[in-house]
């Protein structure tokens, strides 16, 4: 599916996908948090409380869109787009079914690692444009953290790429064997942790930590723009989980066809729940500790993994 119209169709499709995943993600998050905290979460709304998110979304759409007087309007307005668009576009290379991806390109993995990083700009724009102390601190923290965690995240994916010998996600998923999982376990752990940090989620949610910075880099956003930040967070989480299941867990393996898609979804949902589990269990880290974890723990771990994979390949 290439060409201009294909892109438009896929863009809309991915937008809807991100929207749905946000609704289900927020609902799931509130439910997961509730059950961890000995309560129920939304359950009075119809359909197990999923309608709660329909209410929330409609409400946010029609809420006042505040522009603070001191804010820089242009940047303030486009910052949310810089957050959501890269997430939506990055979904294009995910092989949703065995042997098929919306954009089957030979540099798919590189694409996925590179494009969502553009949202660093969104964080910086949002933090800077509000001219608000909390937001600027949050924006700087978020940008520093997202850029540093790029390194271990990319290195961790590199291990699987070495095993597969390709950067094409569709081929990689086809090549995937179950014995890769124990071999690349360290890489998977690194990827998981780095993805949480990349998404600014707890326990690494320094950029938006409500106990210090109130709302972090989107403190002054309201209404639909605020909802777009939420969309980017949950869409990004879905994208990271999808990519993680494809690269590290074999995607549709062991089935194919429609059942394969189901398998992929199940793996993704499990990963997303794990993301939430981490957020609601652990305390938050401090910025300097976070940086230290990235450079002193995760990056060496990823390098060790690459060495292990190298040895394994040589041994094969």
């Amino acid at each position, binding site marked *: 599916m290439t060409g201009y119209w294909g892109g438009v169709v896929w863009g809309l499709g991915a937008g809807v996908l991100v929207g749905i995943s946000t609704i289900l993600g927020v609902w799931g998050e*509130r439910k997961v948090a*509730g059950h961890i*905290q*000995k*309560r*129920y*979460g*939304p*359950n*009075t*709304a*119809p359909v197990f*409380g999923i*309608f*709660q998110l*329909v*209410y*929330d*979304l*409609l*409400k*946010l759409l*029609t*809420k*006042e*869109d*505040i522009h603070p007087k001191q804010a820089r309007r242009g940047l303030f307005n486009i910052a949310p787009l810089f957050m959501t668009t890269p997430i939506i576009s990055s979904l294009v290379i995910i092989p949703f079914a065995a042997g098929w991806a919306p954009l089957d390109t030979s540099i798919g993995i590189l694409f996925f690692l590179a494009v969502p990083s553009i949202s660093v700009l969104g964080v910086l724009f949002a933090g800077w444009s509000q001219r608000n102390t909390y937001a600027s601190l949050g924006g700087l923290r978020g940008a520093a953290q997202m850029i540093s965690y790029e390194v271990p995240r990319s290195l961790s994916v590199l291990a699987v790429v070495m095993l597969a010998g390709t950067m094409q996600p569709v081929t990689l998923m086809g090549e995937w064997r179950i014995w890769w999982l124990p071999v690349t376990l360290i890489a998977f752990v690194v990827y998981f942790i780095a993805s949480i940090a990349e998404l600014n989620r707890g326990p690494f949610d320094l950029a938006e930590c*409500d*106990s210090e910075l*109130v*709302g972090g880099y989107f*403190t*002054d*956003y*309201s*209404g639909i723009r*605020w909802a777009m930040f939420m969309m980017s967070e949950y869409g990004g989480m879905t994208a990271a989980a999808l990519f993680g299941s494809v690269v590290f867990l074999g995607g549709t393996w062991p089935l194919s066809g429609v059942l394969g898609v189901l398998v992929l979804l199940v793996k993704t949902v499990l990963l997303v729940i794990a993301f939430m589990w981490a957020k609601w269990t652990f305390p938050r880290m401090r910025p300097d500790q976070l940086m230290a974890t990235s450079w002193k723990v995760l990056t060496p771990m990823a390098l060790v993994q690459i060495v292990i994979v190298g040895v394994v390949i040589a041994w094969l």
Partner: protein
Amino acid sequence: MAIIDDLGQTLEKMPGGSVILTSFDALLDWSRGHSLWSQPMGTACCAMELIASSFSKFDLDRHGTFPRADPRSVDVMVVAGTISRKMAPAVLRVWEQMAEPRWCIAMGNCTVSGGIFHYDTYAVMPGVDSFLPVDVYIAGCPPRPEALQDAILQLRDKIRNESVAGGRTYEHKLLLPTSSPRVAIEDRGESA
């Protein structure tokens, strides 16, 4: 808010627009009433019950209400606790930072009238309604968390009759699915 307001007023003037307007109102009030995120303006004793109300035993999140720290993304400010003269400007400031539409719940006697600190003191505001438009009052010193839940449900009923076209209120029938535990108004007496 501006676009929605203009839309409402334009619709009202249009011939036949009121049909659209009432459906639009029904949809908006339906969503707004069920999704009341709260700004926990907890200053004193009532803050403890405010915390308790969203935690394990009482769990306001069941009704879609959960506390958020940033005032921009919330709908209802729950003023819980004594408001001193020194604090009042700050409360007003947070209120002004909230995005429209917004509502205010005065939780506890201190916010209703000054309560136990009404007389003989130089430092307490006699009621938060002297500077904020309060929608629902909860009596009690402090009220139980169930009373706050009841206030949220009452506020939902109040929002159901609002219109986007100016400050008008009228009753519109909802054909949309609503949350299940709708307490009948006549049964409300005991819970608070």
